[in-house]
């Protein structure tokens, strides 16, 4: 019996100390990871959508929580006018979630541009949603108050050849964006102004 007790005790102590180590490493790296995610996943899409802004959209951001996980909004100012926000929504593609950055002009509700962030679509087929500029470009200028469909489903979006599912996923994300936008528009205008005036959030370590 003694041996059994020793077995259990060693296992327990070992796993508990592993928990301790991991928790502390996690604590130390948390902000850096968040920063990396921002820089690597969202930043390129945001930059592409907004182009030359008079502010740094990565720092002029705000969050709105609707019960679930908070949504981050990045504000783009042109000539000091914070008239565009960019935020991420999700759709379901061929193989899991597709993250989509949608930029919208608060004044005319038109899409400024879109960009795929995260996806696990088939390389070379579905992944073209992220790499082919033409696909994303067709969204620019559309009214975000509408819902989005590919042409085979009776919509206006040209699907990527051979990647209908991925294209549908992107449309789904765009439609989600439209819903969020419609719900939150009044708040957005309000917060975009304050966020663009606010100084950059404190840089951690």
């Amino acid at each position, binding site marked *: 019996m003694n041996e059994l007790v020793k077995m259990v005790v060693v296992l327990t102590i070992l*796993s508990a100390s592993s*928990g301790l180590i*991991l928790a502390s490493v*996690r604590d130390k790296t948390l902000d850096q990871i968040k920063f990396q995610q921002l820089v690597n996943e969202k930043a390129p899409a945001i930059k592409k959508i907004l182009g030359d802004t008079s502010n740094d959209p990565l720092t002029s951001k705000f969050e709105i929580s609707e019960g679930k996980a908070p949504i981050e909004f990045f504000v783009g100012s042109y000539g000091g006018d914070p008239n565009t926000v960019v935020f991420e929504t999700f759709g379901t593609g*061929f*193989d*899991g*979630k597709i993250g989509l950055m949608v930029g919208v002009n608060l004044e005319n509700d038109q899409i400024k541009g879109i960009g795929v962030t995260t996806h696990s679509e088939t390389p070379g*087929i579905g992944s073209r949603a992220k790499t082919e500029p033409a696909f994303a470009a067709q969204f620019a200028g559309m009214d975000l108050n509408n819902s989005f469909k590919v042409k085979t489903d009776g919509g206006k979006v040209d699907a990527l050849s051979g990647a209908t*599912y991925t294209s549908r996923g992107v449309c789904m994300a765009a439609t989600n964006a439209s819903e969020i936008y419609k719900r939150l528009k009044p708040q957005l205008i309000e917060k975009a102004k304050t966020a663009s005036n606010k100084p950059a959030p404190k840089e951690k370590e």
Partner: protein
Amino acid sequence: MGDYIELIIACIFVNNILLAQFLGNCPFLGTSKKMETAVGMSMAVIFVLVLAGVFTWCINDWILVPYGLEYLKTISFILVIASLVQFVEMFLKKSIPALYAGLGIFLPLITTNCAVMGVCLINIKSEYNFTMTLISSFAYAAGFGLALILFAGVRERILLARVPKPLQDTSIGLVTAGIIALAFYTFKGMV
């Protein structure tokens, strides 16, 4: 219903765990030398993968996510899978020796089968619900079995073929696996 069928086909053929995702390759080459072993291994993987899929889903959804401990999923999953496998092995040995004779000896091999761990992680990453998890676990395992049994069949025949010395055994096995993978590659456009 259609979604489920699609999921099954995708998991078995299109994203075949062995040939498209490269998971579980060590036992793939190790246990494919004999058809009998391959069949036993496939059955054991189906059995364990479904169990492991369900367990890890519960842990993830009920404990890890609510407390924000997702970063501990690797260590907690592997511990749970290892203990589960060992428990099932002991249980079968004592209580259902007939089943143990067929499956039991393959169970320990599964602890370090990255297909099992891999599918559990894929399930979580794809944010499947409980039913989807159940189905995808089963379908991935079935895909593993399909590929393994096909491969074992070919490999038994290869033993009879003229193979240049340096190519023999694992080397020709890998090339063959590549050709089978090429065949599975054609499923890519299916779904």
